[in-house]
């Protein structure tokens, strides 16, 4: 057993010191009837690296990896090129195999990194402060709704139709048990988001309006009016960003008046990972910081007067507050936050803007090309790197048909809204810098063939 250092001689010597006849004697508190006399039956025994690697590789090759085909999926998870440096650095044992920095004197690496991450996230989202990360965008969204309820002491949240349906579903799960009321309807295949309808729904019971930017159909709308309306009613505006790269090209939600901005940070540094682990971004105004969930790194001094960093404001957290905590969250997505922060550092402002511009350029190219395909209608007038098209037919079947020809064409709205036949023609197409012009052509050709 290559991971277990104790030899039989060690074990015997240790038992002697303990004064126990056998290891089994140490399990005396387990009732005899519950103690297994040998390995769990029906399961294989230990295996060498070679065998394990072969098994896992066999499973891996039964998947079509995104990089091996023309690839246009987005809908909350985006494929970007991650510099090799990122993965190298996050694999350093000192980052990878450290725990939560409870002993700050020997965890400044993690703590300073989190402080830098918080600053990067706050600036990107246009907020005063950010936390040290959450599980992912959807759970950050859930936490934002709960936080708005705590701040406003109201229980009704209005969810924009453009909010990712899985995020809606996640918030609904929370609401089902906390008793919050949610107002929500799925989107229509129109070019404009439904800001005006949302404004009409705000009332004195409203804790917050939750709006995604760019939204699930890739649409981009100015949030300022929505923010004003929410604030006028004593409600908060929660903005959700599932594609942070977009903020290299378009204005930040914070700058448009959002009170809480949450997001999915997977685009930078983390990769697709079949959906997890991802990286929840969470930022807000200074005045709400004590209602914010999750870990926070803060600056302080050591006994010698040197700058240092610690986990702080833990009086909000469960290990101190127990049932009165702002959240039950106990883990952040530390290593993903590190990856995000390194990627963002490599990009810097200049690189982020260039990356965003390249995404948008290719997306415009793709939209123009697809618009020429008979039976395809591009829905969006404004978008960043993802847009919706409507096709003559059922998009879900078309996606499957193209997948069988090794083109991963996008995310069908039929998959996201299975009970909404009126959206079945919709297909979301995401175009990042990893897409080549040949890939766009392959998609166009594939759609042409499928829509004949």
């Amino acid at each position: 057993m290559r991971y277990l250092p104790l030899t039989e001689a060690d074990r015997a010597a240790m038992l002697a010191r303990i004064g126990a006849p056998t290891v089994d004697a140490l399990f005396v508190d387990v009732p005899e009837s519950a103690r297994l006399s040998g390995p769990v039956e029906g399961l294989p025994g230990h295996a060498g690296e070679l065998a394990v690697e072969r098994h896992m590789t066999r499973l891996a090759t039964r998947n079509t990896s995104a990089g091996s085909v023309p690839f246009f999926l987005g809908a909350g998870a985006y494929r970007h090129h991650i510099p090799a440096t990122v993965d190298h650095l996050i694999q350093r044992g000192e980052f990878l195999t450290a725990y939560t920095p409870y002993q700050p004197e020997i965890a400044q690496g993690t703590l300073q990194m989190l402080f830098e991450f918080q600053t990067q996230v706050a600036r990107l989202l246009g907020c005063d402060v950010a936390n040290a990360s959450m599980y992912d965008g959807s759970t950050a969204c859930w936490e934002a709704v709960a936080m708005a309820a705590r701040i406003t002491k109201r229980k009704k949240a209005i969810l924009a139709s453009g909010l990712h349906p899985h995020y809606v579903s996640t918030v609904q799960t929370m609401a089902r048990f906390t008793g919050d009321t949610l107002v929500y309807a799925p989107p229509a295949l129109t070019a404009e988001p439904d800001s005006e309808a949302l404004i009409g729904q705000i009332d004195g019971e409203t804790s917050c309006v939750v709006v995604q930017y760019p939204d699930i159909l890739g649409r981009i709308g100015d949030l300022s009016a929505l923010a004003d309306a929410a604030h006028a009613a004593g409600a908060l505006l929660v903005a959700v960003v599932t594609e942070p790269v977009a903020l290299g090209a378009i204005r930040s939600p914070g700058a448009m008046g959002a009170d809480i901005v949450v997001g999915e940070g997977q685009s930078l540094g983390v990769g697709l990972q079949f959906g997890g682990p991802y990286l929840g971004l969470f930022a807000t105004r200074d005045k709400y910081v004590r209602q914010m969930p999750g870990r926070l790194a803060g600056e302080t001094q050591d006994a010698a007067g040197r700058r240092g960093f610690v986990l702080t404001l833990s009086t909000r957290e469960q290990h101190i507050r127990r049932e009165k905590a702002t959240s039950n969250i106990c883990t952040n997505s530390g290593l993903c936050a590190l990856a995000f922060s390194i990627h963002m550092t490599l990009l810097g402002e200049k690189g982020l803007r260039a990356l965003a511009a390249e995404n948008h350029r290719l997306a415009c190219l793709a939209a123009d090309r697809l618009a020429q395909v008979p039976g395809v209608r591009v829905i969006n007038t404004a978008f960043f790197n993802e847009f919706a098209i409507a096709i003559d037919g059922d998009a879900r079947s078309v996606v499957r048909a193209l997948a069988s020809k090794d083109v991963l064409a996008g995310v069908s709205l039929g998959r996201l809204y299975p009970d909404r036949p009126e959206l079945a023609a919709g297909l979301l197409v995401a175009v990042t810098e990893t897409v080549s012009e040949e890939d766009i052509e392959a998609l166009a050709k594939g759609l042409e063939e499928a829509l004949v």
Partner: protein
Amino acid sequence: LEEPLLFELGTRETCGVDLPVPSGAASARLGGLERDGGIGLPGLSEPETVRHYTRLSRQNYAIDLGIFPLGSCTMKHNPRLNEKVARLPGFADLHPLQPEATIQGALGVIAELGEWLLRLTNMAGVAMSPKAGAHGELCGILCIRAALEARGDAREVILVPDSAHGTNPATAAFANYRVESIPGTVDGRVDVAAFKARLGPDVAAVMITNPNTCGLFERDMKEISDAVHAAGAFVYCDGANFNAIVGKVRPGDLGIDAMHINLHKTFSTPHGGGGPGSGPVVLSEALAPFAPLPFVVQTADGYRLVEEEGAADQGGAQAFGRMSAFHGQMGMFTRALAYILSHGADGLRQVAEDAVLAANYVLRSLDDVLDAPFGAYGPCMHEALFSDKGFGEGLSTIDVAKALIDEGFHPMTMYFPLVVHGAMLVEPTECESKATLDQFIIALRGIAERALAGDAQLAQAPLYAPRRRLDETLAARKPRLVFQD
């Protein structure tokens, strides 16, 4: 050398990637929302980036550098094989919404890992999507609530022992339950009588950690479970300490209805400075139908991913909803599965045995100098609990912890569990050699003797770390959470 902040090193003109220069002429379709003004994000060239983070990393302690005996955190060796397989493009470079035909291997990983978890726990169902232990707790409690609602039984109270992790009451409260705390017994276990006495038609569940946070096995678990079930309630087990019993005891045999499993504890996925975690929840027959979406089922045509609520034909009729956007922590599943396959059923059992052996070795090597509150009541499980009883004037657990830093070791968990004054919880895990344990014991013994003798120097520790003690009060009083230019 001190490492400056990124914001002190970088400039807005520097860039560590090569990208096409944006042509300003492009007719953007951004709805008139072009970002103007600076974002305030400095960049570094690639060599500077490597150096910044390499240097930062060296200010961290890590399991790769030495023993990390944090009680209840289970810091064990993180095999690099697992990192390697998790990075296979066939796993790492998959989109969660790819068509099923293109992700059969990935669904296979989820199914295979789930099967192992079921067999190791002897339970009926498993929810794979929770993203960490606390998220798993919430998932379990929500299953319980769903099951109770399904039978029209509105209950309001969850009972939690006073030794529980803070996440337990926090979770129960988040799920809108009223939390009642049940005190423990003198030997560090839950008070069975108190529990039984409190059971009634308003109690939805009890949440018990087993092995518990004092490092002890709850001997009467089955008796409690039976009583809870008899009262129409459910038993939630916090599986944070599953490492002590994996392959030796199956929670399903003890009447547990739901238990989360921290893959980053028992199954070695790296902690990464605080996450990501992964917290699948195993469920009893009674709770399994309420498991959240999405989940994987095997059909004649291969694996299917059930994502739709009310998909009755696939067993999703009673699913309580979705815990998060996608299918869970795939990157952790691949690592955990590789770890499990490496150990096999025999190796996992050995893991538990060695972990318990190592903890008892620490306990019995130090209980003559350190107070062991429950030491007289028999062996511990995977962690040894001490207290600061008898320390000299002004010295407490924190001083011992910080002094360990100066000896080159990461401290144990301090002041937890709360039920023991000045608690020191040492969890060596199965991954330490006897030589390392002996070094650690010698160091801790020396410090303990100094603490008992009232050596005031201990209050100055650490002296040989990248930082002396940090002022946490200052940090909390005047929070500086972001860099200000």
